[in-house]
């Protein structure tokens, strides 16, 4: 595809998107959940649309990334960036499980003796480590892994 064709395609896409935007005119979603949530929420008790998958069940830690990637606005109803960054830091220092030791009911990574356990977890599924430590939050990895 030559440059003129690319420019034409981008211009057409822009015009199309502008038209779709002009016709949308829907009220934005609330930025805060109207009811106070005091326990781990089961969204499906009230919502039958895509928010039903946001139920904070026992395996939510494994699939919460899908929710964040697909509908982060739903997460933002209850959680702000500070909540995400408390585990997903760029240069984390304190382990989340050290900061929140008084919340044992939360499923947090790295509880207990993680110095030895990380060798095991890293062998089972290193992709799970890569998500947080692949390109950020890995200063501490470099102490041993040079």
């Amino acid at each position, binding site marked *: 595809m030559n440059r003129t064709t690319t420019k034409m395609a981008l211009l057409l896409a822009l015009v199309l998107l502008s038209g779709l935007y002009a016709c949308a005119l829907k009220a934005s979603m609330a930025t805060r959940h109207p009811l106070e949530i005091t326990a781990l929420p089961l969204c*499906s008790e009230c919502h039958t649309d895509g928010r039903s998958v946001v139920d904070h069940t026992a395996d939510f830690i494994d699939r919460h990334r899908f929710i964040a990637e697909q509908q982060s606005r739903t997460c933002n109803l209850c959680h702000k960036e500070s909540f995400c960054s408390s585990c997903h830091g760029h240069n984390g220092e304190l382990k989340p499980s050290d900061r929140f030791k008084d919340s044992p009911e939360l499923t947090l990574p790295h509880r207990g003796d993680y110095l030895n356990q990380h060798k095991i977890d890293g062998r089972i599924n290193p992709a799970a480590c890569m998500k947080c430590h692949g390109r950020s939050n890995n200063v501490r990895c470099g102490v041993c892994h040079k």
Partner: protein
Amino acid sequence: MNRWNVQQSTSAVFVRKAAAFLAALALLSAPALTAALTLSGDSSTYVQSRQLSDKTRVIGGYEYLDFMVQDLGSDTISFHTGGWLRYDFKGEEYGKRPNDDLQYSYLSFKSKRDNTAVNLGRVMVFEGVAAERVDGMYARTDLKGGIGVSAFAGQPVETNDTFPGNNLIYGARVSQQWQGVYRIGVSALKEEKNSTDYRKEGGVDLWVHPLTKVDITGRSTYNDVTKGWMEHAYTLMLGPFARLRLDTSVSMINYDDYFFRTTTPVFTLTPGVVTPHERMRMAGETVMFSATDKLSLNADYRNYDYSIAGRADYYGGSIKFSMPESGGAGASYHRMKGETKALQYNEYRLYGYKKIAKIGITLDAIDVVYDVPMNGVKDSYALSLAADYALMNGLKLGGDVEFSHTPDFDRDVRALIKVLYHFGAKGGA
């Protein structure tokens, strides 16, 4: 620079940053400027004492601050920032590490229509294939026909990044949904470093709700540099049926395509660390049963099948009892049964927490018993006791002690004290 000078320099930087923060806080608190502002945030101060593998003890002080200003001239504009500082009271772990970090900091505009939003600054982006932290811009909006579009661009915020030259990341996601039935997204990102294509990734993500009590969610991602699928990961959720839920997960990861362009040698494809050409398939089932509103029982099973390293099974169960605002307890057992000695162990956990008036107490015990001892240790455990006291509304003092016996430490004692303060005020009268 000798150790004393390093320490002096660290404290000087700490003081300067603290002063800058207080000045900013004072400025924002000035009555003339806060006529309609809503300020809120959390300050978490920690002092942690821990031992290094060479038996030296380090004591570090940390300040984690998250701060939000809403209604900046208009109720659609807000400012969000969060970061941390560290001060080394004793010892400096691992040499000259960074002693601060800005996690996020951006100005946000959110329209009252079409979920249009624009964030400028250090933003976190979670859109399809992108899970990035970027110094730049993120924008999204809804269009007609259930279509949503988002885009981001800027400089990637990465650790240990030593590439010279340009450093740019950008990407977009387009999604389309039929409310209550499905949502499908297509996304792509490109990262350029030193005028070369460093990363080129694409992905498809979806949520499908074909029947009542049936949901499927997941994603597939493709590496356009290595020309291979990085990951397929999907979960089928069934329920609730009375008090029962079942989640089935499957995933597949191609190591050569997934472990690509990392900023740490840990994830470079090296035999014995992350095996080159390895392909991992995982299939798992989680069964959740809510016996009452306060009592739940879960059973889970994961099967890991590797093209080179063989296979492993991880299975077990847990029981949880919780009374919101009052306390709770839990216990779990899991068995890892792999083909290598390191992947053969039993894992136990028992915890309880109780709130009595303004006092909270937590006990937590984790025990891992290896089939074959590691460094001569068969039983690795960690016991922790935590307590906190709500001094006043928004202000909490706490502390914890953890004792552990592990393959790396015969006896390790860690202690942490913390002061947590939540502040928030509606400006103006």
